[in-house]
């Protein structure tokens, strides 16, 4: 502190020209004002000042902060008793500034007790003070948070009956815990006083026991980024029966005059007028012209804008007009781009007027389109609207693009969102158990386009037939969201048990309708996550029946019945394609290289399996993988290859020169698999085979191709001969944009019954139980599909003694791969048994 005073004395030091410095031990802001000349700045040190002061000339009064701690803030406290006049404010405005040079009050906290914080004139009097160009910056006015006993004592900003306040700018301020945050009073008379040209931003009106703002005169006013919460709510227990019915956030109740242009933007109104307020509301705007009280000096208001606000959780949302008075205005009211919802009645009485989000009690029609009303169903929206209000179109969601600034809708207003639906783009129906076409009423393609999610007749599904498939395309890209993204609904009348013969289908997804990735197997209904296939979105879904046709099935049994697909996580906005290696196999999934004719190791340059992936080079460079005599390689596609017209696969071999098979007999056996476990051999092809290989309907949906050299050493003279040279394996369908769809008409082409899961002649109890590699040495790798959340795995020796017993858990129908330690087992034959929910399967294996 560089100057000191003594309590009870005064005096000021000027350090900087035109600046005064007031300290709390020498407490006289008023004396600084009195000493100052227009334009001076009065700096008020941190501390508590129990005084009021009258701003009688244009000065800047700058405190040290608006917080509650006087050690670092300037806190003005005063009581009506201390001030000697309860009709004035702690700060009395009696001077005007000018354009660009207003009376400035900044960084001050005002705590009135039983009086106004800032006043123009005197409470309930007609002083006719005329003040203009006033700026409040970071001025926080806090009352005592006491409900009024009808005395209206604490008012943050008060303007009396005939006083005029114009060009008022308020920023970063607060009017909290008072009876009224603002109270702008107007006489019903010929008096033309008003409060005009008002700009309020980033300012709070909170916890005021009656109203955040009450204005009987207000013109050309903008409130931007304000917070209006818990004014006149039940927590304050307002006991004044006169005030109680009309508690509100903002109550603009204009009297005697022509007013215009009131805008409220980017603000939040919550928790206002709740409890026992008969007519409580967040925002009330009225221009009183109702007889008899206001007919002689009526008020009108034109041009009201409420936009980008959140108005929710109040007794009512916005009410226009006085209840039961049929006011003519306000007129030209536009309410747009707000979230106005969940404004629900809490008043226990039944005598309140209409409730809802917008209540227009005036004769003028209000435009309130493009707001979010808490529902995208018109009938529900209408429930919250009362009176002449145009509210359609309304926002169909309440997503807020910027939660820190009112409500910034992300939904597009007035544009009907696309109707997202599935359409069949490809199908091939299988046959019934009896070998006949599926009946017509179970073959209506459109029945698979919408999921009724019901097993109730009439028939509203599409039966795939055994081995058949259907591809559905969504016109909106399905989003990969949290958890499962789609649910495939199957229609099964009754609760059929889940067993090896359950109706099931493989479900694939694709972005382009060409490259399909396996999502999993649906047994009856099934839910799938696009993440399984690494897809950010997908538009095509292929459902392929893999139901095992039980021998005892009735003749009409027809496989998986597609009810439809339900989208669980909505639709994607960004449809950037997920990279897929076009055409060629993407990775090596196994195999073993053979030897040269004389059983030597093949040179390294010809021994890199990855050379067989991707697209072919189609030239005679060392960009291939030599299988060696008897060797093989497993290649995997990133997508599923479906059977279609003609061939689907092309295997490219590298032969230096153009030798024919007659002179150069490098040959390979081509096999395919959808799971890298069960393989079907398609045939043997020589190196000069230039055609495409048909995977056949039985193998539709494969992702794995195995190329195995079957060349004969005796056909080659050179000892360095090393068998078939794989340049690439490509899926032919990838080279065209046409989905591998044989027909879009229901041709009912029969497909052979797949038996891909059957490893033995015993009907499957445990879906797809496999032993990978048999005999085994140290580890027993098994694979099966969970038919229940819990499975038990045990191993028995040939004497029937259990040598291993383990429990495993997992998701229903999850494909499980387990490695069991068996190194401790003595060489010999063993039985592997998997049990799950009453199902059981046992298969043998040999321990080496």
């Amino acid at each position, binding site marked *: *502190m*560089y*100057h*000191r*005073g*003594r309590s009870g*004395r*005064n*005096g*000021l*030091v*000027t*350090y*900087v*020209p035109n600046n005064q*410095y007031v*300290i709390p031990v*020498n407490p*006289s802001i008023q*004396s600084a004002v009195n*000493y100052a000349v227009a334009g001076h700045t009065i*700096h008020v*040190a*941190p501390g508590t000042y129990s005084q009021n002061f009258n701003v009688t000339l244009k000065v800047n009064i700058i405190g*040290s902060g608006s917080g509650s701690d006087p050690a670092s803030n300037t806190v003005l406290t005063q009581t009506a008793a201390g001030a000697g006049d309860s009709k004035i404010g702690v700060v009395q405005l009696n001077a005007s500034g000018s354009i660009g040079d207003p009376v400035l009050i900044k960084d001050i906290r005002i705590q009135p007790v039983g009086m106004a914080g800032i006043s123009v004139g005197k409470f309930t009097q007609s002083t006719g003070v005329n003040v203009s160009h006033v700026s409040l910056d970071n001025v926080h006015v806090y009352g005592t948070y006491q409900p009024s006993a009808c005395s209206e004592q604490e008012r943050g900003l008060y303007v009396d009956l005939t006083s005029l306040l114009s060009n008022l700018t308020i920023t970063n301020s607060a009017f909290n815990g008072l009876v009224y945050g603002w109270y702008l009073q107007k006489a019903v008379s010929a008096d033309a006083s008003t409060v005009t040209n008002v700009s309020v931003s980033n300012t709070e009106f909170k916890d005021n026991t009656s109203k955040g703002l009450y204005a009987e005169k207000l013109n050309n006013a903008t409130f931007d980024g304000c917070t209006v919460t818990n004014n006149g709510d039940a927590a304050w227990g307002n006991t004044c029966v006169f005030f109680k019915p009309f508690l509100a956030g903002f109550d603009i109740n204009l009297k005697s005059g022509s007013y215009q242009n009131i805008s409220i933007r980017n603000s939040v109104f919550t928790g206002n007028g709740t409890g026992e307020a008969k007519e409580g509301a967040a925002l009330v705007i009225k221009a009183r012209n109702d007889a008899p009280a206001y007919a002689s000096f009526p008020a009108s208001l034109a041009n009201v804008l409420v936009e980008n606000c959140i108005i929710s959780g109040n007794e009512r949302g916005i009410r226009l007009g006085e209840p039961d008075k049929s006011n003519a205005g306000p007129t030209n009211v536009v309410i747009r781009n707000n979230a106005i919802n969940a404004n629900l009645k809490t008043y226990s009485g039944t005598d309140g007027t209409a409730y809802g989000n917008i209540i227009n009690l005036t004769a003028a029609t209000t435009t309130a389109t493009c707001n979010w009303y808490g529902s995208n169903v018109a009938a529900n929206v209408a429930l919250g609207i009362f009176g002449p209000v145009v509210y359609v179109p309304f926002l169909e969601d309440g997503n807020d693009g910027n939660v820190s600034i009112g409500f910034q809708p992300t939904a597009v207003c007035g544009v009907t969102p696309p109707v997202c639906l599935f359409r069949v783009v490809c199908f091939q129906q299988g046959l019934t158990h009896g070998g006949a076409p599926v009946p017509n009423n179970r073959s209506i393609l459109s029945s698979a386009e919408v999921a009724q999610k019901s097993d109730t007749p009439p028939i509203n599904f599409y039966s795939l037939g055994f081995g058949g498939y259907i591809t559905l395309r969504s016109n909106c890209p399905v989003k990969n969201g949290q958890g499962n993204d789609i649910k495939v609904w199957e229609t099964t009348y009754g609760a059929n048990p889940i067993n090896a013969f359950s109706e099931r289908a493989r479900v694939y997804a694709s972005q382009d309708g060409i490259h399909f990735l396996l999502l999993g197997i649906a047994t009856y209904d099934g839910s799938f996550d696009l993440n399984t296939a690494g897809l950010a979105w997908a538009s095509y879904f292929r459902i392929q029946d893999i139901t095992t046709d039980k021998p005892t099935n009735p003749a009409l049994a027809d496989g998986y019945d597609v009810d439809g697909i339900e989208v669980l996580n909505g639709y994607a906005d960004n449809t950037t394609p997920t990279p897929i290696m076009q055409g060629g196999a993407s990775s090596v999934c196994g195999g073993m290289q053979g030897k040269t004719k004389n059983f030597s190791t093949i040179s390294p340059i010809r021994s890199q399996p990855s050379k067989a992936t991707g697209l072919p080079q189609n030239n005679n460079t060392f960009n291939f993988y030599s299988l060696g005599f008897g060797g093989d390689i497993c290649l995997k596609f990133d997508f599923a290859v479906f059977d279609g017209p003609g061939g689907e696969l092309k295997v490219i071999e590298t032969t230096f020169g153009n030798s024919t098979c007659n002179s150069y007999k490098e040959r390979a056996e081509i096999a395919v698999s959808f799971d890298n476990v069960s393989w079907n051999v398609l045939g043997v092809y020589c190196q000069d085979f230039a055609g495409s290989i048909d995977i056949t309907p039985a193998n539709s949906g494969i992702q794995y191709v195995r190329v195995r050299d079957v060349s004969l050493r005796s056909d080659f003279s050179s000892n360095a001969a090393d068998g078939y040279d794989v340049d690439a394996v490509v899926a032919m369908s990838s080279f065209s944009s046409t989905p591998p769809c044989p027909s879009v008409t229901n041709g009912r082409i029969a497909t052979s019954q797949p038996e891909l899961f059957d490893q033995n002649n015993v009907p499957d109890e445990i879906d797809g139980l496999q032993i990978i590699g048999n005999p085994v040495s140290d580890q027993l790798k098994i694979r099966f599909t969970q038919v229940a959340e819990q499975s038990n795995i045990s191993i028995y020796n040939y004497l029937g003694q259990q040598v291993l017993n383990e429990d495993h858990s997992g998701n229903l129908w999850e494909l499980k791969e387990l490695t069991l330690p068996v190194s401790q087992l003595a060489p010999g034959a063993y039985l592997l048994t998997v049990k799950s929910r009453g199902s059981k399967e046992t298969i043998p294996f040999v321990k080496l």
Partner: protein
Amino acid sequence: MKTTLFSLLILLILTRETTAQTTLYVPGSYPSIQAAVNASTHPLDVVEVAAGTYAGAINISKSLSIHGSNLGIAGNGIRLAESVLSNAKITISGANTVTIDGIKIFQSDNTNDAVLLGGSSIVTIQNCLVERFGISPGIIARAITTSSGSGAKTLQKNLFTGDLSGGLFGSHKTWNSGIYLNAAASTVQIKNNVFKNCRTAINIDDFNAGIDVTGNEFDNNGTHMAFGGVVPTSGQFVLPANSFKSPGDAIINLSNVNINFRLDITSSTLNGLSFASYPLTNLF
């Protein structure tokens, strides 16, 4: 007629001889300053005090000058061996003109006013080193005190300083006040002094337009300047340019001023900079 003229000439000669200005040397001609003062007969007499330490009170009720070994050398300048007046309370009274220049006034006892200037006296104290190392803490010891009256006072180029070991407040061992203008002094010039390590550098009661405080340097005093009086001071004043350095407590203490008292110190500096360059937290 000739006789008459001769007699007048003799009278004039005799008169000049009896009022001639004299330099009185201490301790060369007089054992003490007070003895020299007592012997002085001419208002222009000079008591010249050699370097050394001199005790005992000094009461001056006639016009004269006292010159010490540092005549003409500012109190904070590079000084010679001092002529030290130790615990020698100096009292100047009557409507006399007195100049004290180039001495060191040292105090360790509990005397309230080391130099007490009567209201009608016309006094210049300059180029003095005024120092206190009190043996007792918290003593209201003032280096120079003025009384109300019309006699002009000029206090310039002195250094007021003291012992810091007791701090700058209740237990201080330095000057409680460097200069204390007690009651309504009419014409006082306090110019180009240095106040360092005083409890309060200057206490001014009844500040008025006749008090000129100019060109002084205030450094590390508890309070640089305090204003007030038995009757709270009123009025609006502009303090001429002075140089303030950071105080122990306050630059300006408005202890006893009226509600109307205003002091404009915008011409001064704080640590060499204008006050405008400081944040509010420094200025409150």
